[in-house]
């Protein structure tokens, strides 16, 4: 059983590298079109966003299918989002700008769409940095807090995509819908949990808490006056 899972895991690791292999093939066969550097940016950025969406999709899938044991894959997919984002950044610096720092500097300062890309990258960088199990243990409650920023990374990534386009908004719109659905799932779960926890409070205490609330209310009104 364990062997099988490990096998599946190593297979997943390999599958996630296929987009990169595909990219290399397209570079070698000159299939990236008239502006291959632009195409390279879009390809790498796209895959980073896709892996980010997949990472966010794990929890809902787990909840719906009740299939546990996907948490490992969430980490794997998240790391791949970071991996492709890193390649995206390196392509920008090396392939596109050939490390001419003055041009890079002006480009970043004058291009607000890049600021969102940088924000998204800083977040996924920190998440990747704290992804090992020992880091999770050491950080305790803060780990979850930090890793919630993945939502912000996804939204910033999409703005980064949207904000540089003149037309053709279909692709970023697609990601927006996906991320919106994934986020609304979380909101639904949160709302449901809240309702559940309210109902979980024993009757006597509930009555007490209602009394407490009633007590507080007139006080607040008094203060306002």
């Amino acid at each position: 059983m364990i062997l099988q899972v490990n096998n599946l895991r190593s297979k997943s690791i390999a599958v996630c590298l296929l987009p990169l292999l595909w990219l290399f093939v397209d570079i070698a066969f000159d299939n990236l079109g008239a502006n291959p550097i632009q195409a390279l940016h879009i390809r790498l950025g796209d895959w980073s966003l896709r892996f980010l969406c997949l990472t966010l999709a794990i929890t809902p899938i787990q909840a719906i299918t009740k299939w546990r044991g996907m948490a490992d894959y969430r980490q794997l997919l998240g790391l791949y989002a970071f991996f492709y984002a890193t390649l995206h950044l390196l392509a920008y610096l090396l392939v596109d700008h050939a490390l001419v720092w003055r041009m890079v500097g002006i480009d970043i300062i004058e291009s607000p769409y890049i600021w969102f890309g940088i924000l998204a990258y800083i977040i996924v960088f920190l998440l990747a940095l704290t992804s090992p199990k020992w880091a999770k243990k050491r950080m305790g409650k803060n780990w979850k807090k930090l890793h919630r920023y993945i939502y912000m990374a996804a939204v910033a990534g999409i703005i980064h995509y949207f904000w540089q386009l003149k037309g053709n908004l279909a692709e970023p719109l697609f990601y927006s819908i996906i991320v919106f659905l994934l986020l609304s799932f979380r909101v639904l779960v949160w709302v449901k949990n809240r309702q559940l926890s309210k109902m979980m409070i024993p009757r006597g205490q509930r009555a007490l808490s209602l009394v407490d609330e009633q007590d507080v209310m007139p006080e607040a009104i008094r203060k306002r006056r």
Partner: protein
Amino acid sequence: MIIKTTKDIPASEITDPLIFKERRKIIKAMLATVFSGVGIAPALANNHNPAWATLPKSDFSTDLLTPTPAELIKNYTNYYEFAFNKQDSTSLAQKLRTDPWSIEISGEVEKPGNYYLEDILRQQTLQEHIYRFRCVEAWSMVVPWVGFSLGNLLKTVKPLSTANFVKFTAVHQPEIMPRQHNNAMLEWPYVEGLRIDEAMHPLTILAVGMYGDVLPKQNGAPLRLVVPWKYGFKSIKAIVKIELLKRPPITSWSQFAPDEYGFYSNVNPAVAHPRWSQNSERQLGSSFFTSRRQTELFNGYGEQVASLYRDMDLRHFF
């Protein structure tokens, strides 16, 4: 009027198309497909004879500007009437009907009328104009246009002294142009405009071809404007109407996003687009790990056109 181009473009700045072609060659050889070794000039002279085999070069064409390979020019162009991405618009544009083609010239002129393109071409002198082309999306290329001076054409219809602006209107064929059909994004048909002195400037041309042959449809066939010191969207494609006006026309992109695209839209590295920098550009045909090109004020045509904008705040009139 002869305006000397004193500031040539150093050869080192130009992407070596040979690198590009070498790479292509090796790959094509690997695929064992027949690849005609394309020289620098007539890259599209494959099967048929080009429309204009040899043409005199305009005063502004320098041998130091190496044209971008035709295949790249033909496959990287915006045509929003057809699609919002370059691949689809190129294939869809092949449906455009360009024959016969007439142009209405009207407004503040002595001799308004409808003119057939072939009649106009009989009157005008065609030349090869090797110009830089800089898109607002921060990419650039060098195109060997075939065209004639817009000013010369306008002179034949005798502009009145009240003609201060020129409005250009592009073709309206919603039945074959999906984005026109859906009324998507811009107000259709596409409209562009120039100040009369910009229109009369000898650098400003109407192009009917490139690389010695008729314009590919996606590149603006059968007749397009080329204003090399302005961002590419000013160079309107498939023109059907030219009006001389007292007041400035409302142009398509400027109407769509007035804070992003101004009426002038002169190439200027110091004035960023609100969302991205215009300081540098990616030249089509340049290889990986090569730096971008530093964008020049007026796209390198400052010597010829800077005087048109004397005493103007270019940041305000962007």
